[in-house]
């Protein structure tokens, strides 16, 4: 194996093992920062040895053993100087080889879940949660995270350092899995981080890129992991389903020149049937738990209506309007109301829907939201009020933060002007 080839192979092992390794080590040393350092040390040793010896049969267990040895070395060397390693020595002895090797797969799931709850801890800033989750659960380098968010690498590095410090100082570095009423709130924080990540990749709010694949892929992967390690939580499956459906349309939502293509105009034959099937299965799992659907599962149910419709016209808009109604009850929001208005417009015609949209115009939360005038323009256009529609699209374009979206709105405005 050439040196670069073996390096790539080791990186692949790291990608597969790092989250489990850090999660297991954190259980032992009760400090996520220290756990990551130990895991990194083990990686350095692997990078030195594996190109010569080849990758071992059980690379995860090998890395865990190397990290544990490293911990014990540090303990001996720094016993008096640094008391935090004492904990390592004490707990390292408590675990059997099987546990260290992660043979008990239930345990791996528990460790990973605890780690996700920790990296998404509410005491951290949102940016800190996202960066730390991508780093520890996704196994991404700070450089990769920085490129995904288009910010300088030191910014991300600092967010991660700060997040780890906050966790340590709050002694939240490795608590038990939250339970009872706390669980709901903590799970919401986790779901929020993953969905934030997905949306950041799905529709960049600013800049030239309309989608950033790496973030979408990572969020989707984390969502799938969460659904596996928290199988009794309907919203974990709901979020996974929602992202599967949205990802199924990724290829079709941008044109060759990077311009956005709206749902109604997308080539549905290019939607990824495999991801749609996965989305439907995840939604079914959420439903089968027999609890009322939460905001993510309801949004997934709406996305499922689109995914199963052969065309925009043949979509079950009445069902979608009803689902938005249900969504507005569990997650009241003017944006949900706006979406409900769109569905009602499709189901019952633009006249009544336009009234609903106009009622929303006084909503403070929607003052700068470009989709409000954009939707209004659409209804006006359908009602034949072309001049007013053009003005609405122009107003929407002035508010749009994404260049590609702005171009699309300006094109629609221009089409109205030339049609007058």
């Amino acid at each position, binding site marked *: 194996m050439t040196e670069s080839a073996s390096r790539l192979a080791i*990186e*692949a*092992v790291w990608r597969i093992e790092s989250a489990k390794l850090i999660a297991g080590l954190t259980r032992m040393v009760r400090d996520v920062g220290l756990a990551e350092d130990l895991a990194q040390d083990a990686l350095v040793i692997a990078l030195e040895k594996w190109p010569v010896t080849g990758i071992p049969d059980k690379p995860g267990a090998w890395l865990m053993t190397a990290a544990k040895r490293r911990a014990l070395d540090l303990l001996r060397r720094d016993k008096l100087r640094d008391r935090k390693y004492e904990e390592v020595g004490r707990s390292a002895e408590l675990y059997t080889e099987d546990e260290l090797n992660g043979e008990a797969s239930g345990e791996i799931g528990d460790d990973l879940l605890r780690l996700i709850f920790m990296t998404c801890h509410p005491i951290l800033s949102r940016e800190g949660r996202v960066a730390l989750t991508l780093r520890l659960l996704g196994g991404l380098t700070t450089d990769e995270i920085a490129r995904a968010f288009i910010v300088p690498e030191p910014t991300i590095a600092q967010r991660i350092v700060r997040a780890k410090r906050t966790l340590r100082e709050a002694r939240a570095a490795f608590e038990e899995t939250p339970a009872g009423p706390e669980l709901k709130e903590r799970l919401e924080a986790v779901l929020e981080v993953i969905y934030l990540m997905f949306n950041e990749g799905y529709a960049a709010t600013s800049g030239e890129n309309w989608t950033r694949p790496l973030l979408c892929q990572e969020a*989707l992967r984390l969502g799938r992991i969460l659904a596996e390690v928290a199988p009794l939580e309907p919203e974990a499956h709901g979020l996974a389903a929602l992202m599967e459906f949205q990802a199924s349309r990724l*290829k079709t939502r941008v044109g060759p020149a990077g311009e956005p293509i709206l749902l109604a105009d997308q080539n549905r034959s290019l939607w990824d049937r495999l991801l749609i099937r996965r989305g439907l299965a995840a939604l079914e799992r959420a439903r089968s738990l027999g609890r009322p659907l939460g905001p993510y599962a309801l949004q997934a149910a709406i996305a499922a209506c689109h995914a199963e419709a052969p065309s925009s016209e043949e979509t079950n808009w009445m069902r979608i309007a009803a689902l938005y109604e249900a969504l507005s009850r569990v997650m009241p929001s003017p944006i949900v109301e706006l979406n409900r208005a769109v569905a009602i417009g499709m189901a019952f015609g633009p006249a009544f829907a336009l009234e609903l949209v106009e009622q929303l115009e006084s909503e403070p939360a929607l003052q700068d939201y470009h989709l409000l005038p954009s939707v209004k323009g659409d209804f006006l256009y359908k009602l034949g009020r072309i001049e007013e529609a053009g003005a609405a699209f122009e107003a929407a374009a002035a508010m749009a933060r994404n260049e590609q979206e702005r171009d699309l709105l300006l094109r629609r405005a221009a089409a109205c002007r030339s049609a007058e």
Partner: protein
Amino acid sequence: MRFMMIVKATADSENGKPPSPELFEAMMKYNEELAKAGVLLAADGLHPSSNAIRISYPEPGGKPKVIDGPFTEAKELIAGYTLIEVKSREEAIEWAMRMPDPHGNGEGRIELRQVFEAPELTEDPSMLVSHAKLTEEMKRRGRS
């Protein structure tokens, strides 16, 4: 990046002989690992070729010829597949290496194949280059 791990058929799988309980359990465990790593997209086993048909086009532009199974060349047949979504070819290889020996009688064979995808879904520059080259090649052939 998507990869398909294809498990090749054997005399046993073609005869409809189920895997041993140990192998079955090892496969279940492996699939669970894939799922917990968030990389599993789909995994299916196929019926023996005895109830399959094969459609071929021996004459260019001619009618298809349909042959009923079973087909004799077991080694060339497929017994099942697992579809995964990973970040690199090396990660796919690492997962494929971890799949249990699918037959356990010296006949086990797994083939790892990459799935074509739209270039905007991958950020791997080498993939983008190969995709661009392929598109170019297809254009060239289309013209000649």
